[in-house]
Protein backbone atom coordinates (compact mmCIF):
# COMPACT_ATOMS: atom_id res chain seq x y z
CA UNK A 1 0.00 0.00 0.00
CA UNK A 2 2.98 2.32 0.08
CA UNK A 3 2.49 2.95 -3.62
CA UNK A 4 -0.78 4.63 -2.70
CA UNK A 5 1.06 7.38 -0.87
CA UNK A 6 3.04 8.23 -4.00
CA UNK A 7 -0.03 8.22 -6.21
CA UNK A 8 -1.92 10.51 -3.87
CA UNK A 9 1.00 12.92 -3.69
CA UNK A 10 1.23 13.02 -7.45
CA UNK A 11 -2.51 13.49 -7.96
CA UNK A 12 -2.78 16.35 -5.50
CA UNK A 13 0.22 18.09 -7.06
CA UNK A 14 -1.23 17.75 -10.54
CA UNK A 15 -4.71 18.84 -9.55
CA UNK A 16 -3.52 22.00 -7.86
CA UNK A 17 -1.06 22.73 -10.66
CA UNK A 18 -3.89 22.64 -13.16
CA UNK A 19 -4.91 26.25 -13.71
CA UNK A 20 -8.45 25.31 -14.64
CA UNK A 21 -8.99 23.46 -11.43
CA UNK A 22 -9.15 26.13 -8.77
CA UNK A 23 -11.96 28.05 -10.51
CA UNK A 24 -13.92 24.82 -10.72
CA UNK A 25 -13.48 24.17 -7.04
CA UNK A 26 -14.10 27.66 -5.74
CA UNK A 27 -15.90 29.72 -8.35
CA UNK A 28 -18.36 27.17 -9.67
CA UNK A 29 -20.22 26.61 -6.41
CA UNK A 30 -20.41 30.33 -5.68
CA UNK A 31 -21.60 31.17 -9.21
CA UNK A 32 -24.24 28.49 -9.32
CA UNK A 33 -25.72 29.50 -6.00
CA UNK A 34 -25.68 33.19 -6.97
CA UNK A 35 -27.38 32.61 -10.30
CA UNK A 36 -30.00 30.68 -8.40
CA UNK A 37 -30.74 33.63 -6.19
CA UNK A 38 -31.73 35.66 -9.27
CA UNK A 39 -33.80 32.85 -10.65
CA UNK A 40 -35.55 32.56 -7.32
CA UNK A 41 -36.83 36.12 -7.20
CA UNK A 42 -39.43 35.55 -9.90
CA UNK A 43 -42.69 37.14 -8.99
CA UNK A 44 -45.70 34.94 -9.33
CA UNK A 45 -49.05 36.65 -9.91
CA UNK A 46 -52.57 35.46 -10.64
CA UNK A 47 -52.36 32.49 -8.38
CA UNK A 48 -55.63 30.63 -8.85
CA UNK A 49 -57.05 30.12 -5.40
CA UNK A 50 -59.75 27.80 -4.20
CA UNK A 51 -61.21 28.24 -0.76
CA UNK A 52 -63.18 25.64 1.12
CA UNK A 53 -64.85 27.42 3.97
CA UNK A 54 -66.13 25.00 6.57
CA UNK A 55 -66.57 27.66 9.24
CA UNK A 56 -68.75 30.36 7.65
CA UNK A 57 -67.90 32.79 10.38
CA UNK A 58 -67.15 36.46 10.29
CA UNK A 59 -63.50 35.73 10.83
CA UNK A 60 -63.22 33.22 8.04
CA UNK A 61 -64.97 35.71 5.80
CA UNK A 62 -62.47 38.45 6.58
CA UNK A 63 -59.57 36.10 5.93
CA UNK A 64 -60.99 35.26 2.52
CA UNK A 65 -61.42 38.93 1.78
CA UNK A 66 -57.77 39.48 2.52
CA UNK A 67 -56.88 36.95 -0.14
CA UNK A 68 -59.24 38.53 -2.62
CA UNK A 69 -57.82 41.96 -1.93
CA UNK A 70 -54.26 40.82 -2.51
CA UNK A 71 -52.82 41.41 -5.93
CA UNK A 72 -51.44 37.88 -6.10
CA UNK A 73 -54.53 35.76 -5.73
CA UNK A 74 -57.63 35.19 -7.85
CA UNK A 75 -60.41 33.47 -6.03
CA UNK A 76 -61.71 31.11 -8.66
CA UNK A 77 -63.65 28.60 -6.60
CA UNK A 78 -65.53 28.95 -3.46
CA UNK A 79 -66.82 25.85 -1.78
CA UNK A 80 -69.13 25.39 1.13
CA UNK A 81 -68.67 23.00 3.94
CA UNK A 82 -71.15 20.59 2.49
CA UNK A 83 -69.42 20.27 -0.86
CA UNK A 84 -67.64 17.04 -1.43
CA UNK A 85 -63.96 17.36 -2.15
CA UNK A 86 -63.47 18.49 -5.68
CA UNK A 87 -60.89 17.70 -8.25
CA UNK A 88 -60.11 21.21 -9.45
CA UNK A 89 -56.61 20.86 -8.06
CA UNK A 90 -55.94 17.72 -10.01
CA UNK A 91 -57.48 19.24 -13.13
CA UNK A 92 -54.95 22.00 -12.83
CA UNK A 93 -57.45 24.88 -12.89
CA UNK A 94 -56.40 25.82 -9.39
CA UNK A 95 -52.89 26.38 -8.01
CA UNK A 96 -53.70 26.28 -4.37
CA UNK A 97 -56.62 25.07 -2.34
CA UNK A 98 -57.09 26.47 1.12
CA UNK A 99 -59.33 24.82 3.65
CA UNK A 100 -60.68 26.73 6.63
CA UNK A 101 -61.73 24.24 9.30
CA UNK A 102 -64.97 24.51 11.25
CA UNK A 103 -64.57 26.16 14.61
CA UNK A 104 -61.94 28.41 13.07
CA UNK A 105 -63.38 31.49 14.75
CA UNK A 106 -64.32 29.75 17.94
CA UNK A 107 -60.87 28.28 18.43
CA UNK A 108 -59.14 31.56 17.77
CA UNK A 109 -61.28 33.31 20.31
CA UNK A 110 -60.45 30.58 22.81
CA UNK A 111 -56.81 30.80 21.87
CA UNK A 112 -56.65 27.22 20.76
CA UNK A 113 -54.14 26.67 17.96
CA UNK A 114 -55.78 26.48 14.60
CA UNK A 115 -54.56 24.63 11.56
CA UNK A 116 -55.38 25.78 8.07
CA UNK A 117 -54.62 23.21 5.49
CA UNK A 118 -53.53 24.09 2.00
CA UNK A 119 -53.05 21.83 -0.97
CA UNK A 120 -50.66 23.10 -3.55
CA UNK A 121 -50.48 22.02 -7.11
CA UNK A 122 -46.82 21.21 -7.20
CA UNK A 123 -46.42 20.34 -10.86
CA UNK A 124 -44.61 23.56 -11.46
CA UNK A 125 -42.33 23.42 -8.51
CA UNK A 126 -41.30 27.02 -8.65
CA UNK A 127 -44.80 28.50 -8.84
CA UNK A 128 -45.92 26.15 -6.15
CA UNK A 129 -43.20 27.18 -3.75
CA UNK A 130 -43.80 30.85 -4.26
CA UNK A 131 -47.62 30.61 -4.11
CA UNK A 132 -47.35 28.73 -0.90
CA UNK A 133 -45.11 31.30 0.67
CA UNK A 134 -47.48 34.11 -0.41
CA UNK A 135 -50.46 32.27 0.97
CA UNK A 136 -48.61 31.86 4.20
CA UNK A 137 -47.59 35.47 4.45
CA UNK A 138 -51.18 36.60 4.03
CA UNK A 139 -52.15 34.45 6.96
CA UNK A 140 -49.33 35.98 8.99
CA UNK A 141 -50.54 39.48 8.16
CA UNK A 142 -54.06 38.50 9.01
CA UNK A 143 -52.92 37.19 12.32
CA UNK A 144 -50.93 40.29 13.20
CA UNK A 145 -53.79 42.61 12.29
CA UNK A 146 -56.20 40.52 14.29
CA UNK A 147 -53.97 40.59 17.34
CA UNK A 148 -53.58 44.35 17.01
CA UNK A 149 -57.30 44.91 16.66
CA UNK A 150 -58.06 42.77 19.67
CA UNK A 151 -55.33 43.95 21.96
CA UNK A 152 -57.62 43.73 24.93
CA UNK A 153 -58.29 40.10 24.29
CA UNK A 154 -54.69 39.03 24.05
CA UNK A 155 -52.81 41.47 26.24
CA UNK A 156 -52.66 39.42 29.36
CA UNK A 157 -51.88 36.19 27.63
CA UNK A 158 -48.36 34.92 27.35
CA UNK A 159 -49.28 32.49 24.65
CA UNK A 160 -50.02 34.33 21.46
CA UNK A 161 -52.63 32.73 19.34
CA UNK A 162 -51.42 30.48 16.60
CA UNK A 163 -52.54 29.74 13.13
CA UNK A 164 -50.69 26.81 11.75
CA UNK A 165 -50.39 26.39 8.09
CA UNK A 166 -50.23 22.80 7.06
CA UNK A 167 -49.20 21.87 3.57
CA UNK A 168 -49.82 18.83 1.54
CA UNK A 169 -47.72 17.86 -1.47
CA UNK A 170 -45.33 20.50 -0.44
CA UNK A 171 -43.26 20.26 2.65
CA UNK A 172 -41.34 23.40 1.93
CA UNK A 173 -44.41 25.55 2.30
CA UNK A 174 -43.25 28.05 4.80
CA UNK A 175 -40.04 28.62 2.95
CA UNK A 176 -38.71 30.33 -0.05
CA UNK A 177 -38.28 28.68 -3.41
CA UNK A 178 -34.54 29.00 -3.12
CA UNK A 179 -34.60 27.07 0.10
CA UNK A 180 -36.07 24.29 -1.88
CA UNK A 181 -33.53 24.59 -4.70
CA UNK A 182 -30.28 25.11 -2.81
CA UNK A 183 -30.12 21.55 -1.49
CA UNK A 184 -30.70 20.22 -5.01
CA UNK A 185 -28.00 22.45 -6.42
CA UNK A 186 -25.52 21.34 -3.83
CA UNK A 187 -26.16 17.74 -4.82
CA UNK A 188 -25.66 18.69 -8.45
CA UNK A 189 -22.35 20.37 -7.70
CA UNK A 190 -20.96 17.50 -5.71
CA UNK A 191 -22.07 15.04 -8.36
CA UNK A 192 -20.48 17.00 -11.17
CA UNK A 193 -17.16 16.95 -9.36
CA UNK A 194 -17.42 13.21 -8.98
CA UNK A 195 -18.52 12.30 -12.46
CA UNK A 196 -16.72 14.81 -14.63
CA UNK A 197 -13.46 15.42 -12.87
CA UNK A 198 -12.65 11.79 -12.11
CA UNK A 199 -13.53 10.45 -15.52
CA UNK A 200 -11.71 13.24 -17.32
CA UNK A 201 -8.68 12.90 -15.10
CA UNK A 202 -8.27 9.21 -15.86
CA UNK A 203 -9.08 9.55 -19.54
CA UNK A 204 -6.50 12.32 -19.80
CA UNK A 205 -3.87 9.81 -18.74
CA UNK A 206 -5.12 7.53 -21.50
CA UNK A 207 -4.87 10.36 -24.01
CA UNK A 208 -1.33 11.37 -23.17
CA UNK A 209 -0.25 7.76 -22.78
CA UNK A 210 0.91 7.88 -19.19
CA UNK A 211 -1.64 5.27 -18.21
CA UNK A 212 0.41 2.75 -20.17
CA UNK A 213 3.45 3.66 -18.14
CA UNK A 214 1.39 3.04 -14.99
CA UNK A 215 -0.11 -0.18 -16.25
CA UNK A 216 3.34 -1.60 -16.85
CA UNK A 217 4.30 -1.08 -13.21
CA UNK A 218 3.37 -3.53 -10.44
CA UNK A 219 0.86 -1.01 -9.03
CA UNK A 220 -2.36 -2.78 -8.07
CA UNK A 221 -5.76 -1.86 -9.42
CA UNK A 222 -6.89 -0.98 -5.92
CA UNK A 223 -4.00 1.41 -5.36
CA UNK A 224 -4.57 3.05 -8.72
CA UNK A 225 -8.29 3.48 -8.18
CA UNK A 226 -8.10 4.73 -4.62
CA UNK A 227 -5.27 7.04 -5.61
CA UNK A 228 -7.41 8.49 -8.37
CA UNK A 229 -10.64 8.71 -6.45
CA UNK A 230 -9.55 9.94 -3.04
CA UNK A 231 -8.38 13.41 -4.11
CA UNK A 232 -11.72 14.08 -5.78
CA UNK A 233 -13.49 12.73 -2.76
CA UNK A 234 -11.72 15.37 -0.69
CA UNK A 235 -12.54 18.07 -3.23
CA UNK A 236 -16.17 16.95 -3.25
CA UNK A 237 -16.38 17.20 0.53
CA UNK A 238 -14.73 20.59 0.42
CA UNK A 239 -17.12 21.92 -2.21
CA UNK A 240 -20.06 20.63 -0.21
CA UNK A 241 -18.84 22.41 2.90
CA UNK A 242 -18.28 25.59 0.94
CA UNK A 243 -21.72 25.30 -0.64
CA UNK A 244 -23.46 24.71 2.67
CA UNK A 245 -21.64 27.67 4.17
CA UNK A 246 -22.78 29.93 1.35
CA UNK A 247 -26.29 28.54 1.62
CA UNK A 248 -26.34 29.41 5.29
CA UNK A 249 -24.59 32.78 5.22
CA UNK A 250 -25.88 34.22 1.97
CA UNK A 251 -29.28 32.60 1.57
CA UNK A 252 -30.06 31.86 5.20
CA UNK A 253 -31.17 28.41 4.22
CA UNK A 254 -32.54 26.87 7.39
CA UNK A 255 -30.70 23.93 8.86
CA UNK A 256 -33.33 22.21 10.91
CA UNK A 257 -31.78 18.79 11.28
CA UNK A 258 -28.32 17.58 12.26
CA UNK A 259 -25.83 18.66 9.59
CA UNK A 260 -23.52 15.76 10.33
CA UNK A 261 -26.10 13.51 8.68
CA UNK A 262 -25.55 15.38 5.44
CA UNK A 263 -21.79 15.04 5.71
CA UNK A 264 -22.01 11.37 6.56
CA UNK A 265 -24.30 10.79 3.65
CA UNK A 266 -22.03 12.76 1.32
CA UNK A 267 -19.06 10.63 2.34
CA UNK A 268 -20.88 7.59 1.09
CA UNK A 269 -22.58 9.28 -1.82
CA UNK A 270 -19.30 10.58 -3.22
CA UNK A 271 -18.11 7.02 -3.65
CA UNK A 272 -21.14 6.40 -5.84
CA UNK A 273 -20.55 9.35 -8.16
CA UNK A 274 -16.80 8.79 -8.18
CA UNK A 275 -17.48 5.16 -9.07
CA UNK A 276 -19.68 6.30 -11.93
CA UNK A 277 -16.89 8.62 -13.07
CA UNK A 278 -14.47 5.72 -12.91
CA UNK A 279 -16.82 3.55 -14.88
CA UNK A 280 -17.18 6.23 -17.55
CA UNK A 281 -13.40 6.42 -17.80
CA UNK A 282 -13.26 2.73 -18.66
CA UNK A 283 -15.72 3.33 -21.51
CA UNK A 284 -14.11 6.42 -23.02
CA UNK A 285 -10.84 6.86 -24.89
CA UNK A 286 -10.86 10.64 -25.14
CA UNK A 287 -11.85 13.43 -22.81
CA UNK A 288 -14.59 14.50 -25.24
CA UNK A 289 -16.12 11.07 -25.13
CA UNK A 290 -16.01 11.02 -21.38
CA UNK A 291 -17.69 14.44 -21.28
CA UNK A 292 -20.49 13.26 -23.50
CA UNK A 293 -21.10 10.14 -21.51
CA UNK A 294 -20.98 12.06 -18.25
CA UNK A 295 -23.47 14.61 -19.60
CA UNK A 296 -25.76 11.87 -20.74
CA UNK A 297 -25.95 10.42 -17.24
CA UNK A 298 -26.07 13.85 -15.66
CA UNK A 299 -29.12 15.01 -17.61
CA UNK A 300 -31.03 11.84 -16.88
CA UNK A 301 -30.10 11.92 -13.23
CA UNK A 302 -31.08 15.57 -12.86
CA UNK A 303 -34.42 15.27 -14.66
CA UNK A 304 -35.38 12.25 -12.66
CA UNK A 305 -34.08 13.44 -9.34
CA UNK A 306 -37.04 15.42 -8.03
CA UNK A 307 -34.88 18.50 -8.13
CA UNK A 308 -37.27 20.48 -10.34
CA UNK A 309 -40.33 18.28 -10.61
CA UNK A 310 -41.46 16.58 -7.43
CA UNK A 311 -41.24 12.85 -7.86
CA UNK A 312 -44.86 12.27 -6.83
CA UNK A 313 -45.94 14.37 -9.80
CA UNK A 314 -44.09 12.19 -12.28
CA UNK A 315 -45.77 9.43 -14.23
CA UNK A 316 -45.56 6.09 -12.45
CA UNK A 317 -42.97 4.60 -14.80
CA UNK A 318 -40.71 7.61 -14.25
CA UNK A 319 -41.19 7.33 -10.52
CA UNK A 320 -39.90 3.78 -10.72
CA UNK A 321 -36.83 4.86 -12.64
CA UNK A 322 -36.01 7.44 -9.99
CA UNK A 323 -35.46 4.57 -7.58
CA UNK A 324 -32.26 3.83 -9.49
CA UNK A 325 -31.10 7.41 -9.37
CA UNK A 326 -28.46 8.21 -6.75
CA UNK A 327 -29.20 11.96 -7.02
CA UNK A 328 -32.70 11.32 -5.77
CA UNK A 329 -31.51 9.86 -2.52
CA UNK A 330 -29.09 12.64 -1.74
CA UNK A 331 -31.60 15.36 -2.61
CA UNK A 332 -34.11 13.70 -0.31
CA UNK A 333 -31.60 13.60 2.52
CA UNK A 334 -30.55 17.21 1.95
CA UNK A 335 -34.08 18.55 1.85
CA UNK A 336 -35.42 16.52 4.68
CA UNK A 337 -32.49 17.27 6.97
CA UNK A 338 -32.18 20.97 6.11
CA UNK A 339 -35.84 21.86 5.72
CA UNK A 340 -37.76 19.31 7.71
CA UNK A 341 -35.31 18.55 10.49
CA UNK A 342 -35.10 14.86 9.67
CA UNK A 343 -33.18 12.57 11.98
CA UNK A 344 -31.27 9.34 11.44
CA UNK A 345 -34.44 7.26 11.52
CA UNK A 346 -35.97 9.27 8.69
CA UNK A 347 -33.02 8.88 6.37
CA UNK A 348 -31.47 5.55 7.30
CA UNK A 349 -33.12 3.87 4.32
CA UNK A 350 -31.34 6.33 2.02
CA UNK A 351 -28.03 5.48 3.68
CA UNK A 352 -28.68 1.82 3.17
CA UNK A 353 -29.59 2.17 -0.51
CA UNK A 354 -26.71 4.46 -1.34
CA UNK A 355 -24.33 2.13 0.50
CA UNK A 356 -25.39 -0.76 -1.69
CA UNK A 357 -25.13 1.48 -4.71
CA UNK A 358 -21.57 2.40 -3.78
CA UNK A 359 -20.57 -1.23 -3.48
CA UNK A 360 -22.17 -2.27 -6.76
CA UNK A 361 -20.89 0.59 -8.86
CA UNK A 362 -17.36 0.39 -7.53
CA UNK A 363 -17.19 -3.35 -8.01
CA UNK A 364 -18.33 -2.83 -11.58
CA UNK A 365 -15.69 -0.20 -12.27
CA UNK A 366 -12.92 -2.17 -10.64
CA UNK A 367 -13.84 -5.13 -12.80
CA UNK A 368 -14.05 -2.96 -15.89
CA UNK A 369 -10.68 -1.33 -15.30
CA UNK A 370 -7.93 -3.40 -16.88
CA UNK A 371 -4.20 -3.17 -16.60
CA UNK A 372 -3.84 -5.64 -19.47
CA UNK A 373 -5.94 -4.92 -22.51
CA UNK A 374 -7.63 -7.46 -24.76
Amino acid sequence: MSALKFILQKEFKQIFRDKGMLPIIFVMPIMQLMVLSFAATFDVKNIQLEVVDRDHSQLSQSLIEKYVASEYFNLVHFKHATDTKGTSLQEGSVNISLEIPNDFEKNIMQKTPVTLSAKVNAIDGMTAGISASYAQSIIQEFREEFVKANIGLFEQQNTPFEINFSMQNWYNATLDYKFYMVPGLLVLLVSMIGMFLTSMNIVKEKEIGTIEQLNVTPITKGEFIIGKVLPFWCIGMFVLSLGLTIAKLVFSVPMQGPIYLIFLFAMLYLFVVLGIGLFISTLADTQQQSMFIAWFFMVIFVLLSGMFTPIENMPVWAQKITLLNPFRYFIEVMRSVLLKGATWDDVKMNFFIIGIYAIVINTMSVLAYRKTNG
Partner: protein
Amino acid sequence: MNSEKIIETTKLTKAFGSFKAVNEITFDVKKGEIFGFLGANGAGKSTAMKMLTGLLSPTSGEATVAGFDVFTQQEKIKKNIGYMSQKFSLYDDLSLLENIKFFGGIYGLSKEQLNERGTAMIERLGLSDVSHKLLKEVPLGWKQKIAFSVATLHQPKIVFLDEPTGGVDPITRRQFWEMIYEAADNGTTVFVTTHYMDEAEYCNRISMMVDGRIAGYGSPKELKADFKSDNMDEVFVKIARGENYKIQ
Protein backbone atom coordinates in the same frame (compact mmCIF):
# COMPACT_ATOMS: atom_id res chain seq x y z
CA MET B 1 26.41 -12.60 -21.43
CA ASN B 2 25.41 -16.16 -20.90
CA SER B 3 23.07 -18.46 -22.75
CA GLU B 4 20.23 -18.38 -20.25
CA LYS B 5 17.05 -17.39 -22.07
CA ILE B 6 15.24 -14.55 -20.34
CA ILE B 7 12.56 -14.11 -22.99
CA GLU B 8 11.26 -16.99 -25.01
CA THR B 9 8.33 -17.04 -27.42
CA THR B 10 6.76 -19.76 -29.53
CA LYS B 11 4.32 -18.81 -32.29
CA LEU B 12 3.19 -15.80 -30.30
CA THR B 13 0.24 -14.17 -32.08
CA LYS B 14 -1.91 -11.11 -31.62
CA ALA B 15 -5.00 -10.73 -33.76
CA PHE B 16 -7.22 -7.64 -33.86
CA GLY B 17 -10.35 -9.13 -35.35
CA SER B 18 -9.21 -11.06 -38.39
CA PHE B 19 -6.06 -8.96 -38.77
CA LYS B 20 -2.94 -10.51 -37.32
CA ALA B 21 -0.73 -7.66 -36.16
CA VAL B 22 1.76 -10.19 -34.81
CA ASN B 23 1.75 -13.53 -36.58
CA GLU B 24 3.34 -16.58 -34.96
CA ILE B 25 6.65 -15.10 -33.92
CA THR B 26 9.20 -17.41 -32.35
CA PHE B 27 12.43 -16.09 -30.87
CA ASP B 28 14.40 -15.85 -27.69
CA VAL B 29 16.46 -13.24 -25.91
CA LYS B 30 19.42 -14.19 -23.77
CA LYS B 31 20.19 -12.75 -20.43
CA GLY B 32 22.31 -9.60 -20.61
CA GLU B 33 22.08 -9.15 -24.34
CA ILE B 34 20.98 -6.15 -26.35
CA PHE B 35 18.26 -7.45 -28.59
CA GLY B 36 17.12 -5.26 -31.49
CA PHE B 37 13.61 -5.49 -32.83
CA LEU B 38 13.46 -3.99 -36.31
CA GLY B 39 10.73 -3.46 -38.85
CA ALA B 40 8.86 -0.90 -40.93
CA ASN B 41 5.95 1.16 -39.61
CA GLY B 42 3.07 -1.10 -38.75
CA ALA B 43 5.19 -4.25 -38.80
CA GLY B 44 3.95 -5.16 -35.32
CA LYS B 45 6.91 -4.22 -33.14
CA SER B 46 4.99 -2.29 -30.54
CA THR B 47 2.24 -4.87 -30.44
CA ALA B 48 4.78 -7.63 -29.78
CA MET B 49 6.41 -5.56 -27.09
CA LYS B 50 3.09 -4.85 -25.40
CA MET B 51 2.39 -8.56 -25.17
CA LEU B 52 5.77 -9.18 -23.59
CA THR B 53 5.31 -6.38 -21.05
CA GLY B 54 1.86 -7.54 -19.99
CA LEU B 55 0.02 -4.57 -21.48
CA LEU B 56 -1.80 -6.65 -24.07
CA SER B 57 -3.16 -10.18 -23.89
CA PRO B 58 -1.78 -12.42 -26.64
CA THR B 59 -4.24 -14.30 -28.85
CA SER B 60 -2.29 -17.53 -29.12
CA GLY B 61 1.16 -19.07 -28.85
CA GLU B 62 3.41 -19.16 -25.84
CA ALA B 63 5.85 -16.82 -24.21
CA THR B 64 7.70 -16.34 -20.97
CA VAL B 65 9.44 -13.21 -19.73
CA ALA B 66 11.85 -13.47 -16.81
CA GLY B 67 10.44 -16.94 -16.24
CA PHE B 68 6.80 -15.83 -16.06
CA ASP B 69 3.99 -16.62 -18.43
CA VAL B 70 2.62 -13.73 -20.49
CA PHE B 71 -0.89 -15.18 -20.40
CA THR B 72 -1.28 -15.69 -16.70
CA GLN B 73 1.51 -14.00 -14.77
CA GLN B 74 1.51 -10.51 -16.20
CA GLU B 75 1.67 -8.80 -12.84
CA LYS B 76 4.76 -10.84 -11.86
CA ILE B 77 6.42 -9.88 -15.12
CA LYS B 78 5.75 -6.23 -14.34
CA LYS B 79 7.84 -6.43 -11.17
CA ASN B 80 10.87 -7.46 -13.21
CA ILE B 81 10.84 -5.14 -16.16
CA GLY B 82 11.19 -1.52 -17.11
CA TYR B 83 9.39 -0.02 -20.07
CA MET B 84 9.81 3.08 -22.13
CA SER B 85 6.91 3.55 -24.50
CA GLN B 86 7.11 4.87 -28.04
CA LYS B 87 5.21 7.95 -26.91
CA PHE B 88 6.88 10.00 -24.19
CA SER B 89 4.95 9.10 -21.11
CA LEU B 90 6.37 10.66 -18.03
CA TYR B 91 4.34 13.43 -16.43
CA ASP B 92 4.90 16.73 -18.19
CA ASP B 93 3.35 18.68 -15.36
CA LEU B 94 5.74 17.25 -12.79
CA SER B 95 9.43 18.05 -12.41
CA LEU B 96 12.22 15.58 -13.05
CA LEU B 97 12.63 15.00 -9.33
CA GLU B 98 8.91 14.47 -8.86
CA ASN B 99 8.78 11.94 -11.69
CA ILE B 100 11.72 10.07 -10.20
CA LYS B 101 10.08 10.03 -6.81
CA PHE B 102 6.74 8.91 -8.19
CA PHE B 103 7.90 6.08 -10.43
CA GLY B 104 10.59 4.94 -8.02
CA GLY B 105 8.04 5.07 -5.24
CA ILE B 106 5.49 2.88 -6.95
CA TYR B 107 8.18 0.31 -7.68
CA GLY B 108 8.70 0.21 -3.93
CA LEU B 109 12.09 1.90 -3.61
CA SER B 110 12.85 3.14 -0.12
CA LYS B 111 13.36 6.79 0.66
CA GLU B 112 17.14 6.28 0.85
CA GLN B 113 17.22 4.41 -2.45
CA LEU B 114 15.15 7.13 -4.06
CA ASN B 115 17.47 9.85 -2.83
CA GLU B 116 20.63 7.99 -3.71
CA ARG B 117 19.63 6.77 -7.15
CA GLY B 118 17.79 9.96 -7.98
CA THR B 119 20.80 12.13 -7.20
CA ALA B 120 23.16 9.80 -9.02
CA MET B 121 20.92 9.78 -12.05
CA ILE B 122 20.52 13.55 -12.19
CA GLU B 123 24.29 13.97 -11.92
CA ARG B 124 24.97 11.40 -14.60
CA LEU B 125 22.57 13.18 -16.92
CA GLY B 126 24.06 16.55 -16.00
CA LEU B 127 20.61 17.91 -15.24
CA SER B 128 21.07 19.29 -11.73
CA ASP B 129 20.04 22.74 -12.97
CA VAL B 130 16.70 21.63 -14.33
CA SER B 131 15.77 18.96 -11.85
CA HIS B 132 13.07 21.22 -10.41
CA LYS B 133 11.68 22.32 -13.77
CA LEU B 134 8.49 20.82 -15.10
CA LEU B 135 9.28 18.30 -17.81
CA LYS B 136 7.27 20.19 -20.38
CA GLU B 137 10.01 22.82 -20.33
CA VAL B 138 12.74 20.28 -21.07
CA PRO B 139 13.88 19.55 -24.70
CA LEU B 140 12.92 16.23 -26.31
CA GLY B 141 16.43 14.77 -26.44
CA TRP B 142 16.77 15.17 -22.71
CA LYS B 143 13.32 13.82 -22.12
CA GLN B 144 14.23 10.56 -23.87
CA LYS B 145 17.30 10.13 -21.70
CA ILE B 146 15.23 10.95 -18.64
CA ALA B 147 12.57 8.43 -19.63
CA PHE B 148 15.22 5.75 -20.04
CA SER B 149 16.76 6.54 -16.68
CA VAL B 150 13.38 6.46 -14.98
CA ALA B 151 12.56 3.15 -16.68
CA THR B 152 15.72 1.62 -15.20
CA LEU B 153 15.60 3.33 -11.81
CA HIS B 154 14.32 0.22 -10.06
CA GLN B 155 17.09 -1.86 -11.69
CA PRO B 156 14.83 -4.23 -13.63
CA LYS B 157 16.06 -7.50 -15.14
CA ILE B 158 14.87 -6.46 -18.57
CA VAL B 159 14.20 -3.05 -20.01
CA PHE B 160 11.92 -2.67 -23.02
CA LEU B 161 12.55 0.40 -25.17
CA ASP B 162 10.07 1.19 -27.91
CA GLU B 163 11.76 3.43 -30.49
CA PRO B 164 13.65 5.36 -27.85
CA THR B 165 15.60 7.41 -30.37
CA GLY B 166 12.77 8.44 -32.67
CA GLY B 167 13.09 12.09 -33.67
CA VAL B 168 16.30 12.64 -31.73
CA ASP B 169 19.49 14.28 -33.10
CA PRO B 170 22.56 12.11 -33.89
CA ILE B 171 24.60 13.29 -30.93
CA THR B 172 21.84 12.55 -28.47
CA ARG B 173 21.30 9.19 -30.14
CA ARG B 174 24.93 8.37 -29.55
CA GLN B 175 24.70 9.33 -25.92
CA PHE B 176 21.55 7.32 -25.64
CA TRP B 177 23.29 4.22 -26.90
CA GLU B 178 26.07 4.78 -24.43
CA MET B 179 23.44 4.62 -21.71
CA ILE B 180 22.08 1.40 -23.19
CA TYR B 181 25.55 -0.15 -23.13
CA GLU B 182 26.06 0.93 -19.58
CA ALA B 183 22.81 -0.75 -18.56
CA ALA B 184 23.78 -3.91 -20.43
CA ASP B 185 27.19 -3.90 -18.73
CA ASN B 186 25.38 -3.82 -15.42
CA GLY B 187 23.57 -7.00 -16.41
CA THR B 188 20.27 -5.57 -17.60
CA THR B 189 18.83 -7.22 -20.68
CA VAL B 190 17.82 -4.62 -23.27
CA PHE B 191 15.01 -5.19 -25.73
CA VAL B 192 14.90 -2.28 -28.16
CA THR B 193 12.87 -1.47 -31.25
CA THR B 194 14.20 0.92 -33.84
CA HIS B 195 13.89 2.17 -37.39
CA TYR B 196 17.52 3.14 -37.68
CA MET B 197 19.57 0.47 -39.39
CA ASP B 198 22.84 1.81 -38.06
CA GLU B 199 21.49 1.18 -34.58
CA ALA B 200 20.94 -2.45 -35.55
CA GLU B 201 24.71 -2.78 -35.71
CA TYR B 202 24.94 -1.90 -32.03
CA CYS B 203 22.80 -4.88 -31.03
CA ASN B 204 24.06 -8.34 -30.13
CA ARG B 205 21.25 -9.93 -32.04
CA ILE B 206 18.26 -8.67 -33.93
CA SER B 207 15.01 -9.80 -35.41
CA MET B 208 13.41 -8.13 -38.40
CA MET B 209 9.66 -8.04 -38.66
CA VAL B 210 7.67 -7.76 -41.88
CA ASP B 211 3.89 -7.67 -41.69
CA GLY B 212 3.68 -9.34 -38.31
CA ARG B 213 6.19 -12.08 -39.09
CA ILE B 214 9.86 -12.45 -38.27
CA ALA B 215 11.68 -12.37 -41.58
CA GLY B 216 15.25 -12.25 -40.34
CA TYR B 217 16.80 -13.30 -37.07
CA GLY B 218 20.39 -13.46 -35.83
CA SER B 219 23.43 -11.35 -35.13
CA PRO B 220 24.08 -8.44 -37.52
CA LYS B 221 27.09 -10.32 -38.85
CA GLU B 222 25.10 -13.46 -39.58
CA LEU B 223 22.33 -11.50 -41.26
CA LYS B 224 24.75 -9.60 -43.46
CA ALA B 225 26.30 -12.89 -44.52
CA ASP B 226 22.93 -14.54 -45.10
CA PHE B 227 21.73 -11.71 -47.28
CA LYS B 228 25.07 -11.07 -48.90
CA SER B 229 25.04 -7.42 -47.92
CA ASP B 230 27.62 -4.96 -46.69
CA ASN B 231 25.40 -3.21 -44.19
CA MET B 232 22.14 -3.58 -42.36
CA ASP B 233 20.40 -1.05 -44.62
CA GLU B 234 20.78 -3.44 -47.54
CA VAL B 235 19.68 -6.39 -45.45
CA PHE B 236 16.57 -4.49 -44.47
CA VAL B 237 15.69 -3.49 -48.03
CA LYS B 238 16.12 -7.07 -49.23
CA ILE B 239 14.02 -8.46 -46.45
CA ALA B 240 11.33 -5.83 -46.96
CA ARG B 241 11.14 -6.69 -50.66
CA GLY B 242 10.55 -10.27 -49.68
CA GLU B 243 13.78 -11.49 -51.24
CA ASN B 244 15.22 -14.60 -49.78
CA TYR B 245 12.51 -14.87 -47.18
CA LYS B 246 14.31 -16.54 -44.38
CA ILE B 247 12.53 -17.94 -41.40
CA GLN B 248 14.57 -19.33 -38.59
